[in-house]
């Protein structure tokens, strides 16, 4: 299968790319790593009239530590670069933990950090990880820019607030509080195949060992990655316990998700897996939080 014909633009700068996107409007599409877009074009499920290839823009690939802490990751940073980065391991170990689950090494050598988030695959790891990390997204268009919270970013499967004349430029992961533990747990049929269910947890403790804040994100069980409000309501300000984790798992898997049946798993299996993974992920994140700063 071969892609349909398209016009190809390979701008060398962000300004040039924004000019082209503005001119093309609904006819234009950003090409990042191409690891989702090109398969879709090969199948002719996607037939963009024009591609604006970001691969020649050198200053969109970076991992920085901004003054206010945390990390700023340029959209075109390859997954494999993020995966092996020492600063990312140090500041956002959740990201590194989830990385090896993304397809295979050859895919991660080409796929980009921002591209995966912009792609908004509900079964993807990075949209959920960004949500768990409370990411902020820098979106540019010709003549203006805006910051979006990840909480408002996803509109549905493969749909985000990014307009056709806009591009994602940077993903900011705010610093994690002290005494924070994170954990990613996933099930799939075999390593590298599609997520059947996955949970990312971020647990922060206060000085007395109570839960100061937490976030539990559920993936592949709805139109977008989902934040469990049950987890927050039931645990913040409380002493964490296995009993509480079980209660959260039951409530979240019964009332907060909308899994579907497809070739990868049945809805019932996804519900069951979500229940088990919430317990595993919270238990692991709590252990890690306790291990930090006494």
């Amino acid at each position: 299968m071969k892609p349909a014909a398209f016009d190809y633009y390979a701008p060398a700068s962000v300004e040039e790319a924004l000019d082209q996107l503005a001119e093309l409007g609904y006819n234009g599409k950003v090409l990042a790593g191409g690891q989702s877009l090109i398969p879709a074009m090969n199948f002719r499920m996607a037939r963009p009239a024009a591609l604006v290839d970001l691969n020649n823009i050198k200053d969109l690939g970076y991992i920085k530590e901004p003054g206010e802490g945390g990390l700023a990751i340029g959209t075109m940073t390859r997954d494999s670069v993020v995966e092996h980065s020492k600063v990312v391991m140090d500041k956002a170990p959740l990201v590194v933990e989830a990385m090896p689950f993304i397809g295979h090494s050859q895919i991660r050598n080409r796929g980009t950090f921002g591209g995966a988030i912009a792609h908004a695959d509900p079964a993807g790891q990075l949209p959920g990880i960004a949500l768990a990390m409370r990411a902020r997204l820098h979106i540019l268009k010709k003549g203006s820019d805006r910051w979006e919270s990840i909480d408002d970013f996803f509109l549905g499967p493969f749909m985000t607030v990014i307009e056709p004349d806009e591009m994602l430029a940077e993903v900011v992961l705010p610093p994690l509080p002290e005494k924070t533990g994170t954990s990613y747990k996933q099930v799939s049929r075999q390593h590298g195949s599609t997520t059947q269910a996955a949970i990312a947890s971020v647990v922060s403790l206060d000085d007395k060992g109570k839960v100061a804040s937490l976030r539990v994100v559920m993936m592949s069980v709805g139109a977008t990655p989902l934040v469990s409000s049950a987890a927050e309501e039931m645990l913040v300000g409380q002493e964490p316990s296995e009993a509480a984790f079980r209660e959260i798992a039951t409530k979240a898997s019964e009332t907060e998700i909308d899994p579907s049946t497809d070739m990868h798993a049945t809805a019932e299996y996804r519900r069951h897996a979500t229940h088990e993974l919430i317990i595993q992920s919270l238990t692991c994140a709590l252990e890690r939080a306790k291990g930090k700063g006494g």
Partner: protein
Amino acid sequence: MNTPINIKVKVNGKEYKRAVEPRLLLSDFLRHDLELTGTHVGCEHGMCGACTVIMDGVSVRSCLIFAVQADGHEIETADGLGTEDALHPLQQAFMEEHALQCGFCTPGFLMTIIPFLRENPNPTDEEIRTAIDGNLCRCTGYENIVKAVKKASVKMAGKAK
């Protein structure tokens, strides 16, 4: 739309200048335009790994890159490994360990394993299995591929000095 774009690509150390349509996949460019048929094509959506080549030192799917995007870059394919009389140590090990039957998947495995061994010259079986998790083989059952990689790693580490 169909207007060809001029590109300059280094493949296996040799520079090629060609004009390509934007929609031409790198896999098809290598096979049809350059007649380097060492790169195989299975699924054309990134799943099987048969089309894996090395681009600027790392393994990638040539079915998921447009030939225009290879402009100014360096590609290595299975065609550039050994010759029939002087096989590359990895090819030799594949032959000795019976790590191929039909051979359709083999170029993809080779171009995945070569950068892997450059990074990790002395891998464990577990690391080898992880490294090849993006390459499908319908014939061998993988066991002999793991053995061949192990054997080649020992030989190549000895040679590298």
